[in-house]
């Protein structure tokens, strides 16, 4: 990693914790040349490309794959219990996969802080899940597994429709709130001895509702969705959920990410419109890319919506080091 990319690497960690994405100070020579060249690009050609893209058929390859994985993994929990097939027993907070412990990192953290006593099974389960999401890409937990993510995605469609009809506007909120809520819930767990976050975690509530049947706790999930539909787009995932930050930190070291290629990009900005966490895509703004190839930062949920929507293939999934190996 060269010094420019290293700088961006640390910048993106700060962005994950809530800092606003800034204009880069140093840009590599090659990238600068491309930026200059792009300024000279024929505007008409670009316009034609945009129009062509708008008329093109929408691709949902990665979204469909992701939804299939999300639904399948949640149903595997449900069916394991209902039909007693014992493949994946438990809920998202903690489970056994054919007898092997899996424990959600944020739930484990809450329990460890509250109970202050860690048994071997807890360590095994947490370690396994840590390695799993290290390999699979940190916040990919959010978009590929979390059941709340899916319902929030549907709520987001409603929200965007209402925005288009000018019935509501998206009220954005300071992203540092998520870091604050992570700290507050960690301190609360340690200080009160109760896993306070677990009582309101929509991920846990939904996962249990899918497996053990619905309950009144779903009202809280519904309240969150109503807030997101009428007030603020994807507010829980973007501004509040500490689980996302926990997995985001794992994602810092993950080799799986989305890669951006500067030279083929038209800077239409469609990717930023569909992105749940558009601050990680600041690099696609004209003149912002610090190098010709840029890995997207750790707060990216690896959902693939940008990969689907990019007309030029400038955003692709990438496994660090794998291309070298092959």
């Amino acid at each position: 990693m060269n010094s420019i990319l290293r700088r961006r690497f640390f910048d993106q960690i700060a962005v994950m914790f809530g800092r606003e994405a800034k204009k880069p100070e140093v840009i590599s020579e090659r990238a600068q040349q491309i930026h200059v060249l792009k300024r000279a690009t024929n505007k008409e050609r670009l316009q034609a490309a945009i129009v062509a893209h708008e008329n093109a058929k929408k691709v949902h390859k990665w979204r469909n794959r992701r939804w299939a994985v999300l639904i399948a993994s949640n149903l595997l929990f449900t069916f394991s219990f209902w039909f007693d097939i014992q493949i994946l027993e438990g809920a998202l907070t903690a489970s056994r996969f054919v007898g092997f412990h899996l424990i959600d990192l944020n739930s484990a953290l809450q329990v460890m802080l509250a109970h202050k006593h860690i048994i071997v099974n807890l360590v095994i389960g947490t370690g396994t899940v840590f390695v799993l999401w290290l390999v699979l890409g940190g916040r990919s937990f959010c978009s590929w597994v979390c059941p709340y993510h899916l319902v929030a995605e549907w709520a987001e469609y409603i929200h965007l429709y209402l925005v288009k009809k000018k019935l509501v506007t998206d009220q954005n909120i300071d992203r540092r709130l998520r870091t604050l809520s992570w700290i507050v819930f960690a301190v609360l767990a340690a200080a009160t001895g109760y896993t306070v976050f677990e009582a309101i975690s929509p991920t846990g509530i939904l996962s249990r509702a899918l497996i053990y049947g619905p309950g009144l706790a779903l009202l809280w999930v519904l309240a969150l969705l109503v807030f997101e539909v009428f007030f603020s787009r994807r507010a829980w995932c973007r501004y509040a959920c500490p689980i996302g930050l926990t997995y985001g930190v794992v994602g810092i070291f993950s080799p799986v990410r989305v890669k951006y290629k500067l030279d083929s990009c038209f800077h239409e900005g469609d990717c930023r419109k569909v992105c749940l966490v558009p601050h990680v895509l600041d690099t696609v703004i004209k003149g912002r890319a610090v190098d010709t190839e840029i890995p997207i930062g750790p707060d990216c949920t690896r959902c693939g919506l940008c990969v689907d929507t990019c007309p030029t293939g400038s955003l692709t999934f990438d496994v660090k080091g794998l291309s070298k190996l092959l």
Partner: protein
Amino acid sequence: MSEPKSPDTAKPPPSRERMQQARRRWLRTILLTGGVMGAAMSGFLPLVYARTKRLRPPGALDEKDFLSSCIKCGQCVQVCPVQAIKLADLVDGLGVGAPYIDAREQACDFSCDAVQCILACPTGSLVYKKPAFLRVRKGAKLAAAPILKAKEKDPEPTLNLSERIGVARLTRPEACLAIQGKGFKGQVRGASFKGRMRYMEVDRWKPIGISEHPYDVAECDLCVRECPVKGAISIETVFAPDGSKRKSPVVHEPCVGCGVCEMICPVEPTCIVIDAREVWNT
């Protein structure tokens, strides 16, 4: 301030509109923070009211430790052969998603023979024996490992359980059939009752519905007859306040608080209940 800055280096002051936008966003942030924290704090309310004393699954730590260590995954629910364990809902606040037993509806009859819920627990909320640093309340510890009547003839007849989860108590002696010298005939709790139990003479490994197993007893002793633990309850001859002799169920020290007596009591409402988390007082 007196030095005039060149327009190239000086940042233009943010426009009025931008400042307003920033302030509004700040207010919204505070609003969402308040909302989330308020929802989180509402979890403490049931603690303040201390409204329900839930009967926890066997091997549960003391309530405070139990709530702090339970990860709310429901693995204990999944292994229970009679589905005695349920997960609490929103009204339990911080206990939402934590397991409990409603003994009157479905008690733990230890038909798994090995307290599998404890085995399933990934965080040590349910334990065979408490770790050294946790205090054992006086009277909570069982004097000896409970002997399971169902496997009394096995080489290892005991349950791996060191503390009780509650104690049975005769709350309505005036309605108790045994005390009145009455018998019982028919389906306990009616035909629609969903509760299940393991009957050794039917099938050791397959619990059946209690409604499928009608009784006909000359003098009611169902709580004693169906109690899974040896020596936990018996029918004794006692003296009534007026000096006359009569029979009555009497709870003894081996009672672990499983709740089968509460479930099986044919009187409505039940005459015998489990005091959850109660200890043995001699």
